[in-house]
């Protein structure tokens, strides 16, 4: 843990070779050296900002059909409004560029929601299990073992296919529905919001194990250290010890795991929507756009590229950023 000691001010002794930098400054400096990670960060930022500005940038309404002939090639002018279809139109004449932007918003939001929720859940359970040991630990460990020894993708598909066909099965609080709907600009009528929320819940259920295991291991290795004991002897509460002393120590690997779980959540959502057990048309996601695209690719070969390229850019991007962070956060890798 050399990086934590770097946080201390360089007190005299003339040991500091250069002006003392904070831990995050070092991390940032190292991260900037990872060229692919920097490129990925830039590309992802562009996609992210574009998705945030979707309602501004989109030239058409999300589900507006019949504006132009189906499968108009890119850069066709709309015969009615005179607006340009940057990427052409899809199989029912909806504007591809518009749908791609809205899909980016939905797909990325789902990925962030799943990664955040599952990391938080895993962190909490892992920290509790590692810190308190005993019954909590054995329950969490049994569940982890159980999850590790089942074929998770088929089960994920089964659960998704059941819940997605009837998303009203789960009682969601209206606040949550409004939050998700507002964030992803979903249609409040129909089952769109429920479906997206179900997707988040299902993927979170299967996504928390990694960070739980990581957190538990970190807590186990940290809890016996002297500084925890001194904190306790100073009268710090369990909550304070976990939040102020244990979690920061487990932070570097968790940040990496979080970035990689973004990639995992994104590809999982895309795969489910592609296989038809995820978010379904007319709610656009890159996965279901790709599904329709493959159905028509024999006659319109450019079509699968439109949702395909953002998928692969984001998947690779998150992976590279995770890799860059791993290099930057690992103090053993002196460059």
């Amino acid at each position, binding site marked *: 843990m050399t990086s934590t000691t770097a946080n201390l001010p360089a007190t005299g002794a003339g040991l500091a070779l250069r002006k003392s930098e904070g831990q995050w400054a070092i991390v940032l400096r190292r991260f900037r050296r990872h060229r692919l990670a920097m490129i990925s960060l830039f590309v992802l930022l562009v996609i992210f900002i574009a998705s945030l500005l979707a309602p501004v940038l989109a030239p058409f309404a999300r589900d507006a059909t019949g504006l132009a002939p189906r499968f108009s090639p890119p850069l066709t002018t709309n015969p009615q409004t005179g607006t340009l279809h940057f990427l052409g139109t899809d199989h029912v004449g909806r504007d591809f560029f518009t749908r791609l932007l809205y899909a980016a918003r939905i797909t990325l939001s789902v990925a962030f929601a799943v990664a955040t929720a599952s990391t938080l859940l895993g962190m909490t359970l892992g920290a509790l299990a590692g810190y308190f040991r005993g019954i909590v630990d054995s329950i969490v460990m049994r569940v982890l073992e159980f999850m590790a020894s089942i*074929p998770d993708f088929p089960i994920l598909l*089964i659960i998704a296919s059941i819940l997605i*066909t009837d998303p009203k099965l789960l009682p969601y609080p209206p606040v949550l529905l409004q939050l998700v709907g507002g964030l992803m600009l979903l249609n409040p009528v129909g089952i769109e919001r429920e479906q997206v929320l179900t997707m988040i819940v299902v993927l979170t259920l299967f996504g928390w194990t990694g960070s739980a295991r990581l957190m538990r291991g970190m807590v186990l290795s940290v809890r016996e250290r002297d500084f925890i004991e001194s904190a306790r002897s100073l009268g710090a509460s369990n909550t304070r010890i976990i939040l102020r002393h244990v979690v920061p120590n487990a932070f570097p690997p968790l940040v990496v795991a979080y970035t990689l779980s973004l990639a995992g959540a994104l590809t999982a959502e895309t795969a489910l929507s592609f296989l038809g057990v995820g978010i379904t048309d007319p709610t656009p996601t890159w996965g279901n756009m790709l599904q329709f695209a493959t159905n028509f690719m024999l006659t319109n*070969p450019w079509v699968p590229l439109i949702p*395909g390229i953002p*998928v*692969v850019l984001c998947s*690779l991007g998150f992976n*590279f950023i995770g890799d860059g962070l791993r290099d930057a956060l690992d103090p053993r890798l002196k460059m």
Partner: protein
Amino acid sequence: MLNYLLRRFVLIIAMAFIISFASFTLLYSAPGGPLEQLASLQSTTRRPDPDEIERIMKRYDLDLDIGIRFLRWLIGHPRGAITINGQDIAPTFQIGCLKPGKAQLVYPDGRIEEINCAKPVYLRDLNGRPVSNGVVALDFGRSQQLAREQPVSNLINTRLGHTLLLMGVSTFLAIAIAIPIGVYSAVKQYSRFDYFFTTIAFFGSGMPTLFTGVMGILLFALIFKGLGLPYLPAGLAESNRDVTIPIFGLIRAGSVADRIWHLILPVSVLTFFSLAGWTRFIRSSMLEVLRQDYVRTARAKGLIERVVIMKHALRNALIPFVTLLAGVLPTLFGGAIITESVFSWPGIGKLFINSLTASDYPVAIAYLLISTFLTLVGFLLSDVLYTIVDPRIRMT
């Protein structure tokens, strides 16, 4: 050792039981299925016919309680009234309800009982009702939607060969390519070769097979065909009719050449994807071993580098390799669901996803149960193999 194996085996059975019961309950309480399909069919033209509904409910055991239904699925019993010495035991034991509603039972002695079922089903009603031999006898029942009334095992059998071929070839290729690359990358750590292949491997694992598959079809099947180059088929496992491709000439439908021709693209996609994991594993395992004292000793006593690498390092680096084989076993059977879907490969993974979208639950459960069983057996197998290849580890 024997004790350990027995304990593990009991655990596997218990686990498979839990999984099967959970998935059975889950799937049969889910919407969809034959009844709903009938309702949606009939509601458009006429009101649902009660007789038809009852017939379907009886046919698929939908009128029975979930426990009884699970038992009939698991062991093929009960099959009707239980008879001992010609005497029926509890023939009027209620095991389900054909039609919900209020009803009154009038007993011969004048007692009246109110029950919450208009048409209760009793044990004796099961007499003569068709039933499978039960999952324990490897009879997974009959398909409800995909292939009406065909045994699920038939459906699986016809597709198993395709999946085994696809997964077997791609797994073998991935390992066969990964070992030399991983070893060389480790020996020449931080060399240009190492960077190149580590980056390639990173791309391979970062790109979803969904994308590489679709792009592969786009490039090699569509664009190559358009350009008059020797192209590859866009899907399926064999052609329906003879095809002539540029340069290579005629390919007869169903011939060995035809099968190989269809195999190239999906196998490449899968190999490219899984190559990364294998390479990274071998590389790190090899790096770990190269740092060991016995490797230094081997070098110090003057062995040539090739012997040090191949005999002293590689053999030890491959020890943890057997733990990964645990993951291979279930995928050999289960196939790659996404890749098979992209290439319309007639394998088990495609069957599973079809069964889910068509709500054909017996097929889906059979798939899940076999995968679970194989996953657990794979873990056991890799543990056992580990003790065989590494005598330092003992099972307790």
